[in-house]
């Protein structure tokens, strides 16, 4: 666990301004007028040069959305969102369609450089000290790989560049922005878009269907193991702008893909809305591993500003023996409303959800998963680690259900919460529904604070209090960190340390 010391050093370096991604960038932007209407949707669709079926699909979703009420069941509180006060489309002027890095606005490249995101293809993700790596292998069971990562960079409403496209194409993998996929691969998009999260699914998903502006598209054909990690990096920059991205990943029979997503936004006093939809489809024997490190701006110490993160993520294990695995590290956003789910439709399919949710300041997190067992011999596993500090509220909400025909459905859920300080709250709301007598569900949950005994033991070895706590917290989340690709694991541990900065009194 090389990041522990690192986390601590990092925490120490950062003084008042904990959120290092809070800078803004002046970039010439192309924007739609504020607010939402059929005209705005037509504007977005026209900007993207979309076929008419896509526009119709959007309009239908919009009309549906007008009839829906904002959900209130989650344990989050916020003032009513004025949808007429949001820009639904904002794109850097140099787009559309940069075909290579040289076409991209240099200012924009600087943004990603500053964020540590490699858009130049020879680079690897920051965060791994390769010189130390070989030696460390003995220390840690983690294997350091000099993994190359293909990146799709989404800036406000549009994808600005996607790297490694050619090399991926040689393997038969399509990795591009969803806008490009709609134009270039309409048959695939039409077949799969909305097939996991229908346009009518829920308030935010329906809104997203109407106004989504960009996102990533991945198609891994039959029998192909994607030769590198794929990644999307989301950046919200423009003021008063909502980001509504849509991601669609399809793994055909026997295919494998690992996909990472990261997100940041500038520090602003106003709240910004992020309402994304992610759909995953795994056919027979396919596997999709989806990892997120969510670090949207959480708001300041008084709870002012921050991102409202209302996200619908769902994977459909459509084929037999397919597998979908969600791993998330949620440290950002003022409000998180997010339940990455698996529909275990295929026989012998597997779903996994590994989550770390850290809340501090006035953050509110309501996150968890749904494992819907439909096929025979399906299994699912949920490991959730919540850490609440400051004045934050941290809720795990999860549903596990076995339908009548889900013979031998298996679920194991473990959900632990840690409280740091006495002004925060940690809540656990699991729903278990069994309709099949051969189902076996096992659920366990605990809530506690860091054990004084553990802290004393660690400090007795000469480790100061704040570092002792960081060490114990990193141990607490280890099961989930292990699920992340190495490059993200290091980054995630740093983030957790930073997020908890100042929580130890």
């Amino acid at each position, binding site marked *: 666990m090389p990041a522990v010391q690192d986390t601590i050093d990092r925490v120490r370096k950062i003084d008042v301004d904990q959120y290092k991604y809070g800078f803004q960038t002046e970039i010439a932007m192309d924007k739609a007028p504020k607010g939402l209407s059929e005209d705005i949707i037509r504007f977005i669709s026209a900007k993207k040069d979309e076929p008419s079926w896509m526009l119709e699909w959007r309009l239908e979703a919009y009309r549906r959305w007008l*009839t829906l*009420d904002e959900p209130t*069941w989650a344990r989050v509180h916020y003032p009513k969102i004025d949808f007429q006060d949001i820009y639904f489309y904002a794109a850097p002027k140099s787009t559309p369609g940069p075909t290579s890095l040289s076409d991209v606005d240099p200012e924009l490249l600087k943004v990603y450089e500053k964020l540590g995101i490699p858009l130049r293809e020879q680079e690897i993700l920051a965060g791994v000290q390769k010189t130390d790596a070989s030696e460390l292998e003995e220390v840690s069971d983690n294997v350091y790989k000099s993994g190359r990562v293909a990146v799709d960079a989404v800036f406000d409403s549009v994808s600005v560049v996607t790297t490694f496209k050619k090399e991926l194409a040689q393997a038969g993998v399509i990795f591009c922005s969803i806008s490009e996929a709609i134009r270039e691969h309409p048959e695939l998009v039409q077949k799969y878009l909305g097939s996991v999260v229908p346009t009518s699914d829920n308030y935010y998903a329906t809104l997203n269907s109407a106004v989504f502006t960009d996102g990533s598209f991945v198609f891994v054909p039959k029998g192909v193991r994607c030769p590198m990690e794929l990644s999307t990096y989301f950046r919200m920059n423009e003021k008063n702008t909502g980001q509504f991205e849509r991601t669609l990943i399809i793994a055909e029979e026997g295919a494998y893909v690992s996909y990472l997503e990261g997100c940041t936004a500038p520090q602003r006093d106003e709240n910004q809305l992020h309402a994304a939809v992610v759909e995953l489809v795994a056919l027979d024997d396919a596997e999709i591993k989806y990892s997120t490190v969510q670090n949207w701006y959480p708001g300041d110490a008084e709870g002012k500003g921050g991102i409202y993160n209302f996200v619908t993520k769902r994977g459909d294990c459509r084929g037999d023996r397919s597998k979908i695995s969600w791993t998330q590290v949620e440290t950002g956003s003022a409000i998180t409303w997010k339940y990455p789910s698996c529909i275990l439709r295929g026989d012998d399919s597997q779903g996994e959800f590994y989550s770390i949710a850290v809340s501090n300041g006035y953050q509110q997190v309501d996150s968890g998963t749904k494992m819907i067992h439909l096929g025979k011999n399906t299994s699912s596993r949920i490991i959730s680690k919540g850490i609440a500090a400051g004045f934050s509220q941290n809720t795990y909400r999860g549903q596990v259900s076995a339908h*009548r025909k889900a013979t031998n459905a298996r679920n194991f859920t473990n959900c632990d*919460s840690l*409280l*740091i*300080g*006495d*002004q*925060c*709250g*940690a*809540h*656990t*709301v*699991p*729903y*278990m*529904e*069994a*309709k*099949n*007598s*051969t*189902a*076996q*569900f*096992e*659920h*366990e*949950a*605990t*809530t*506690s*604070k860091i054990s004084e005994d553990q802290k004393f033991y660690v400090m007795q070895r000469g480790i100061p209090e704040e570092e002792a706590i960081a060490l114990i917290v990193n141990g607490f989340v280890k099961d989930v960190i292990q699920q992340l690709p190495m490059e993200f694991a290091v980054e995630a541990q740093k983030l957790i340390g930073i997020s908890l900065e100042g929580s130890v009194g």
Partner: protein
Amino acid sequence: MNMHAQPQRTPAETALIDAFGDRLSLLPGDGAVMLKRDDAIETIKHGLPTRRVESWHYTDLRRLLNTVPDFDPAAMAKAIAPIVEGSAVVSILNGKSDAKVPVLEGVTFQRLSEKLIDGSIAPGLDPYGSDDAIGALNTAFVADGYFIDIADGTKLEKPIELQNLQAGGQTHVRLPVRVGAGAKAVIVERQTGDGAALSSSVSQIVLDEGAEVTWLVVQEQPETATHLAQFKAHIGKNAKLTLFVMNAGGKLVRQEIMVRTTGEGADFKLRGINLLAGDTHTDVTMVLDHAVPHTTSTEVIRNVVTGKARGVFQGRINVHQYAQKTNAKMACNTLLLSDDGEFSTKPELEIFADDVICGHGATVTEIDHDHLFYLMARGVDEKSARGLLVKAFVAEVIEELEDEAIVEALEARLDDWFVAHG
């Protein structure tokens, strides 16, 4: 939301609202009690809760309780023998208390109708929250019951058995009990009968400092009855409450349990067994508030689901902000024995204090195959082996109770159920 038109009233909603108008003059109490009744019927007028109301997510009362029986039954219920011999028995037959009550040193029994008429019970009639449909239904129509006061320091040797017996129709009763400081008692609440009744029953108990109570709810309604019940308790300083709930009957049953620790050192134990059969729906919903520091609780619920039965356990433990050093543990284990049965569980933790140890576990399983194999290897045939294991699964909870007479009595009820449904 204005966008959605108010759905049409169900026959049950209409019947209840009409009945309230018709029976107004027959209901005991005026003034303060009447105001509470008026508020309560307003809640019913807004409609019975549907699955969209979070606390009713798995029991869509509006759909499940489509019709209600008329108020007056044709037959008269009869008192039954208590489960523990020698108990002091007070009965409510067809919703009416008996003027004749046992004489027991340190214990005062008072007919609830009297307390409704004199208005002294009015403050206790407030609903628990906006989603408290059972509280509202009961407050609107409650006509009788008993108020029981156990004086400070009274140690009862034998149980008090409260029998609420119906023969169809509607009954709405309330059982407020105060247990004085240092007093000790075992109270059995019997809920049974033989008609297609709608019965609402609310038990309210306050434990003063150092009181120790074991309260047993034995619910054996016929498979035609709707039974909506509440058990509310405040546990004072260093007081101990053990609540045992056995559901072994009823067509539509909801047993709510609302407990609050109000003094340091308070301890709550919930032990429950749900024996579910036929085409029935049984819901046990608990809300436990650890409201002060240094209080403890454990909850163990065991469910056996057969036939087309649907079972629900919702358990929420709230640990309030200053309730440091709370220790709370909850477990809900279910044996799902038929393909047509279902069980849903929602064990929640809501925690606002950091220096606590809270946890819950929940399982849904089949019979352990290793255990089955072991018994069969010893020559027990499969059917008997299964029976033994299922019974052992729930009997474990009963055997935790210390009082031998109680354990024997409950195991006898258990045997009866297995004979009828095995």
